[in-house]
Structure formats: C-alpha cells, structure tokens
C-alpha cells in the first residue's frame, strides 16, 4: 500500500560546505525567513537564501512593481531592503537564533560596496549561521548607468575579486549569473577565475508588459525581471551550457545552484540532470509557500524511483546520456 520511504542520500557539497538537503529558497522570494517559517520549517532546508542586501536602506521602486505573465511574472522590486546593519541586527540575528543555515545574498552599486557588505556580514556576531555568500552581480550597476555586472566581464571580475578578499577560508562564495548575456560560459569562466567557489543560475530575465487598457507599460519602471516556470528552459539551457563547458575542461569545475521556474520535483530533476547540484525555489513559493520543502520531497522520490541511491549521481547525468 504505502510506498516505502526512499533511502536516497540527498546531501550536497557547495564549495566545501556540506548541506543535508539540496533545497533552498531563492533570493527575494522568501523575504528574510520569518514569514515563510509560518508555513515550513526553514531550518530543515539545505539553506535559507536571504533577499539581496545592500549597504544602505533601499526603498525599491514605486508600484505597480509586479505583473503576472503566462506561467510567470515580471517584477521590478528594486532590491528593497533595510541595509546591511539592520539586516544583521534583526534578520541574521533571528535566523541565527532558530539555527537556520543561511546563504546571505549580497549586492552593491559598486564593487567596493559589495566588499563592504560582505565584510559586515562575515565580521558580525551571527556569522556562524552563514553557510555561504551569494554574490548577486545580476542587479544593475548604478555607477555604470544601468549596466549589470554579470553582463560585463571586467565588472564581474572586480566584484568577485574584492569580495573574495573579505571572505574567510572555508566560507564559499557563489556568484549569481544573469541569462541576459551573449555567452554565459564566458561570464562563468571570469567569476570562477576571480575565485568564486560556485555559481547560481539563473537570475530573472528582462521583460516588459504593456497595460492594454491604458496602452502604456504596466510596471512603473517599464522593464522588469521575468521569473517562474516560463523561464525554466532558459535556466536549464544556462546550466547545460556551463556544466558542459566544465565537463569538457574548458572552464574550472564548480558546483552549480540551479534556479528558475522550479515548481515541482520533475522541474528540479531537470535542472539536476542538466548539471545543478542544488536547487532554489523562487516564484513558485508565492503560489505555494510550502514549495521549497515539498519539491525536495518530490525530488527524493523521483531519484529513488529511477534507481539511484545518491542525488550526486544524477548531477549532470543528461550530459553522459546525450549522444549527438
């Protein structure tokens, strides 16, 4: 009657840090933990990923800052947040108090601002809760008038280099990449050379929605980031290309955290087979706040059903089974 509990080793290694589960929240899609902790126990996730934090408080954009699109949404939140000092005292302190493993997502307007945010986090009294830093280079670089660091190899290199100087040994630094580039393998190569221990792929991809009653852009910022199941093939593509380049030895091998359109276990399995070691769930949590946990349960069952004992054995398997 009842299916036997799958006995799959779901633990993952992210740049030397071992996590009991591959499941994470996606930055900006679970606030800083308290709200989603009403629905799922976030200490049971592999890691809780915070909203990207900047040095100073940020109000974000005006509204509407959201538009629903087919199987997705556009957002132009604009990295709203309390600034890193308030984040440490309020949010990181709370995450630390409940025993969560935290990946702090950091952002900045300049490369040195990224470094100052990183320094504040790693030197804080709650640093023991931090499992890794995720460097969100996919946000617009104000100093370069709207250029995104992740679209500019020199800028991306500089950010990672400066952050690396602040990060103590043993604390992995993961770079979050944008799919909105001509060659994502090139950017992956640059950030890995600068010392990133892993990659998170992908951030949202730029889109516009028009309000067809008012015949003007729906979002007050006009453009927004597209997320949700609508972008899953783009995420799988990015992971496929970068993992492929790692397997061929064209770039250094490093763990990939897959994110983009994961709503069910099969979606997560797709990203894993393409080369992702861990999985973040973003927009799907707006529909189902239990999704970051539920997808992990579904993924474990799917891996067991296919006869594997370790999730790690499935990572990138699609490359081995692909014979062109």
């Amino acid at each position, binding site marked *: 009657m009842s299916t036997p509990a799958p006995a799959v080793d779901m633990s993952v290694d992210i740049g030397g840090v071992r996590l009991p589960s591959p499941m994470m929240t996606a930055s900006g899609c679970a606030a800083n933990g308290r709200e989603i902790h009403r629905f799922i126990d976030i200490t049971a996730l592999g890691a809780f990923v915070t909203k990207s934090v900047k040095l100073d408080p940020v109000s974000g954009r*005006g509204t509407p800052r959201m538009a629903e699109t087919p199987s997705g949404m556009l957002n132009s939140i604009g990295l709203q947040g309390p600034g890193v000092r308030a984040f440490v005292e309020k949010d990181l302190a709370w995450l630390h108090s409940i025993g969560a493993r935290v990946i702090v997502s950091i952002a900045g307007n300049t490369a040195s601002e990224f470094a100052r945010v990183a320094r504040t986090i790693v030197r804080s009294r709650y640093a023991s809760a931090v499992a890794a830093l995720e460097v969100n280079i996919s946000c617009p670089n104000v100093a370069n008038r709207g250029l995104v660091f992740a679209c500019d190899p020199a800028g991306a290199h500089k950010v990672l280099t400066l952050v690396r100087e602040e990060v103590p040994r043993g604390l992995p630094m993961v770079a979050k990449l944008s799919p909105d580039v001509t060659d994502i393998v090139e950017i992956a190569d640059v950030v890995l050379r600068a010392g990133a221990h892993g990659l998170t792929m992908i951030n949202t991809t730029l889109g516009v929605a028009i309000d067809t009653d008012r015949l003007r852009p729906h979002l007050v910022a006009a453009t927004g980031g597209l997320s949700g199941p609508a972008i899953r093939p783009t995420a799988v593509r990015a992971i496929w290309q970068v993992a492929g380049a790692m397997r061929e030895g064209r770039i250094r091998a490093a763990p990939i955290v897959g994110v983009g359109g994961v709503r069910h276990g099969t979606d997560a399995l797709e990203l894993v087979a393409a080369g992702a070691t861990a999985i973040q769930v973003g927009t799907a949590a707006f529909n189902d706040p239990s999704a970051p946990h539920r997808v992990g349960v579904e993924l474990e069952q799917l891996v067991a059903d296919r006869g594997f004992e370790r999730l790690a054995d499935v990572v990138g398997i699609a490359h081995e089974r692909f014979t062109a």
Partner: protein
Amino acid sequence: MTRTIAAREGAGVVQLEAEVIGNVAAGSYRHLTLVTPGLAELARPGQFVALSVGDGTSSMLLRRSFSIHKVSPAGTYGGTTEIVVAAHGAGTRLLTALEPGESVGVIGPLGRGFPLPAQPVPCVLVGGGYGSAPLFWLAEQLRERGCAVEMVLGAASADRLFGVVEARRVGDGVTVTTDDGSVGVRGWVSDVVPDLIESTGAAVVYGCGPMGMLRSLSAIADEHGIVAQVAVEEAMACGIGVCMTCVMPVRDESGTTSMVRSCLDGPVFRGDRVRWEAFEDGYCRVPEDAVGAPTVVR
C-alpha cells in the same frame, strides 16, 4: 475534499485545499462559501484570504486576495469562510465559476484587521462595491461593544451594491448611494459621509473599497478631526509577506515614511498615515523623503 497543507504550530495562519460548498449570485458578484477548518477561529474582520487559481499546473501562478466576508467556526462542515468575488480578469473569472464540490487553494487569515475602539463610540462604516463585504461582521463586533453603527454602501449601479439587506440588520442606519442614481442617493459615498459624521458624532470612519474612495474618506475624517481606518487594495503576488510587490508609502508614529507591505502591515491602515499624494493615474511613486528613496542624480 478539504486538506490542510501547511500550518505550523502557533503560526496564526493555515494553508488548505478547501472544498467549495456554496457559490451563489449576489448582484453582479458571486458569494462563495469554503470549508476552512482552523481558519475561522483565527480570523478577524478586515483580514483577507489568498486563493490560488487552478491547480499546480495552472499558468496563473499568483494568488488572488479577497476580504473575508464572514467566518463560521463550527457548522455542519466544520469551519467555513465566505468571500464575495467580482469577476474582474481571467483569475477571478475562474474562481467565480467554481462549482460546489470543487476545491481551491486557500491561505488565511492574512494581514491586520480593523482595530476596534476601546470606548463605545459612534462609527460610520463605508463600503464601495464588494468593499462592503467585511463590514457586516465588523458592524456586529462594534455593536457588541456598544458602538452605534451607521452604514453607507455605495456603488456605480444597483447591481454592484453588496449586502443592503444585511446592512439593515446590523446597522443603526443605512444610506445607499449609486453613481447613476438607480437606487438610493445619486452620487458618491463621499457626498453623504460628512453629514453622517456630524449627525452621529462619529469618532471613527471605517472604509473598504476602491483607493480613490479611501483617499477621500481619509480627507473627510481629517477635516472632522477623527480617525479613518481603511482597508486598501494593492496588487499582491503572494499575500504572505515574501515578495515585496504590495508596498505603499506609509508614515509611522514618528512621521517617517517607508514602503511597507500592505499584506502584512495592512490591509487596514490609518487613513492619515497613507501618503495618498504619491498615487496618481494608476502608479504610486516613492516619496522623495521615504526611507531609502533613490537620490535624485543631476
């Protein structure tokens, strides 16, 4: 069948797959009754529920929010929650078409409800269109505390009024306005509210309805030196405080303006705290003096 998906001990909120047991017409709206064990006991007037559209494969990912019209803790079906839904776009069209026996994802109760006055003071309750849905339950609670309750229901036309009969039951007085004059006083609720505040000596105005109406209620309350408590509607993606899409510029006690989440700190706000002047032509801009507002680059 109703099924609980997530509800952590003491969280004050539940996530359910709720069975629909009623869907009846109410003017141009649909009045839905959902089986929601555990939710009714937690809810207060002014709070809302967030419903999912379709199942886990639906292309409409975001939840739709609706004020709680009424809850019944323990009927034949266990606890139930009632909402009043206007078919506005694709999502609400699907929700208004739900048949008894079908199920729908529900999260609730969400947000902060209407604060009740400590003293038994006269109150004016103003609902615009389906915005009157949460006010009857509020009226009952106010009456239980000895408050006199004057109700004002307004809408574009007679079919968009909700609950006129119920208002007569729970209110000490009821005024109806319609833009087209098809029933009641021709005009807006704001045309009749100042006189009612004066004649009743009201200390609080409660409002729920379109933003323009809430803005003018707040102005009227200010002019009379009383407080307006208004339930706002800002586009929400999650309803539970994780996405930051539903923000509005609101002042705190010390006068500092921040972009606050209306799903978590609202939907009920004191009218004089909302920076209404930031809303214009369907957009809301960040006031220059708000915390973390972008500095103007010249």
